[in-house]
């Protein structure tokens, strides 16, 4: 019995036919692995999102909001096509606040009476600067970069900035004349 096994082992090592055969088996195995990897790559590349192109004045482009004086301190103006609200803080600073709730992505309406953003989906509440007043939202509403050129407020909706709370540094102030 034992001798038999030994014989076989030796056979396997020496017999060129056997060696070639086991080499070929392994080769098949690796080829199959490569084919599988290619298939997975193919599937993921099919699933990969194509980058959309933003048109003028649409979300994803720079949007001209209007003259500085149009926005009273303490007011919030909706820009539906840009998917943001332009908040003018009481001290005159501007913030372009995303309308998308940071919890799970519902659109938050501005409630003028209560001076707050209230999410209809799971009850998150945000103040005028987008900071969380009431959970479950884990962080303040995202903001978009605001720039003021020649007294015109512009918002770049291509760049979404995440933040956990509101800092004064995030607001943009018009130059004093």
């Amino acid at each position, binding site marked *: 019995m034992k001798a038999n096994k030994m014989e076989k082992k030796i056979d396997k090592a020496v017999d060129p036919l056997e060696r070639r055969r086991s080499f070929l088996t392994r080769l098949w195995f690796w080829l199959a692995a490569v084919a599988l990897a290619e298939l997975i790559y193919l599937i993921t590349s099919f*699933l990969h*999102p194509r980058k*959309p192109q933003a048109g003028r004045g649409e979300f994803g482009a720079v949007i001209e909001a209007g003259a500085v004086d149009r926005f009273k301190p303490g007011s919030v103006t909706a820009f539906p096509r840009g*998917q943001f609200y332009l908040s003018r803080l009481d001290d005159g600073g501007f913030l372009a606040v995303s309308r998308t709730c940071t919890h*799970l*992505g519902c*659109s938050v309406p501005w409630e003028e009476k209560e001076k707050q953003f209230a999410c209809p989906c*799971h*009850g998150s509440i945000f103040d005028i600067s987008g900071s969380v007043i009431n959970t479950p939202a884990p962080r303040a509403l995202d903001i978009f970069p605001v720039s003021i050129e020649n007294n015109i407020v512009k918002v770049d909706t291509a760049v979404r900035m995440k933040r956990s709370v509101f800092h004064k540094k995030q607001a943009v102030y018009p130059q004093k004349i």
Partner: protein
Amino acid sequence: MPERTTLRRRVWQSVFPVPIIPRTEQQRRRYFFAHLVLHFRPATVPEKTLKLSLTWGLGGMAAVLVLLQIGTGLLLKFVYEPTATAAYESIRALMTEVPFGLLVRNLHHWCANLLVLVIFLHMMRVFFTGAFHPPRQFNWIIGLLLFGLVLVANLTGYLLPWDQLSFWAITVSTGMLEYIPGIGGELQETIRGGTEIGPATLRIFFAVHTAVVPLALGLLMAFHFWRTRKAGGLVVPRAPKDDPDPDPVRVPAIPNLLVREATVAVVLVAVVMMLSVFFNAPLAEPANPGLSPNPTKAPWYFSGLQEMLLHLHPTFAVFIIPALVAAALVCIPYGNYNQNIDGVWFVSQYGRHTALKTAAAAIVLTPVLIAMDEWMIKPGRWFIDLPPQIGRGLLPTTLLLAVAVGVYRLVKGRTSAFRSEAVQAVFVFFTVTFVVLTITGLWFRGKGMLLVWPW
């Protein structure tokens, strides 16, 4: 020399080599090999497994519902236009202009919802008759995969009408993916086909709903039935005090099993027909990305998850707790149980008592906790001042695990004799909790997701 036959007869025999209705014993025995569809069934089944009080016909109902979904779905595909601009209008046209379009849409809707309910109940009956022990362990796993697929089918189908219900339910449920650590963002972008729900999302969901899911479901169902056959049929029902019967009396599946299956199927079809004639599937306003309806509710089978989201930190509600639950479900059949409980409802007399008690505990405890969180735990009080990852994440999750261990220990006692009862008690506790959460989210949540009385 071959018999002389007519052409009609020769053609007929080439298609149906054996009689459609078997008349002799021998024909009956050959029947299974000769008919493709019947081949999934065993030739004989243990007589006792035919009782309705074992299966309640639930697995068969699930199979019938899947077939109905494929039939109605194929019809819908001829009318539906899978683009964000045309989808809503094509559904409206289907409902108002296509003859029987409304009925077919309603059937597809009701079968889909019923399917979730039916496979949940089927899973319950499989668990509570101990049908997940060897040799049926892996069939439980296949069953879990089927459950997952049915949920994917429902969710992807939900988007297709492209109305306010679809748009926001899918926004919220794909929004959950973002909280999966590491791969979440990437995964979300892949599934949405971009950063937001849009035409690409519809294209992807349509492909998954009408090709990937049906194909996978068909293959897995065939596997499921084959494994049921290989296990020698279903678990044989018996009273807790009876020993398992190693050699149960078997009877031919035809006609015994077949007439029962057919009866269940006919009754079920009658029920879904009634539902579809009297209750229309909802269609809200066309999707409007700027306006979330208030309240925006998840489809009913996710309202338990939605309820968890109201109380817990999202990473825990959408990832950690579901992952723990899934892992536990996968592990159930691989526990080291030391008694044979196949076919005994609720393990034993002791198992029945403990299951009832844990169910009662969960029914009382869950609403109390929900109410406490709603009215007593407010910002500035208690542990809410802890960071949310801890106060609304780690702490409650640890509490849940402690409850699981506590229930297990309490029911098992000091010996290892009651392991099955203990596992069952933990299962009952969390299942009932989940059902209570689902009911709360479904009927007790109103505007702004505040607690309301439904009447």
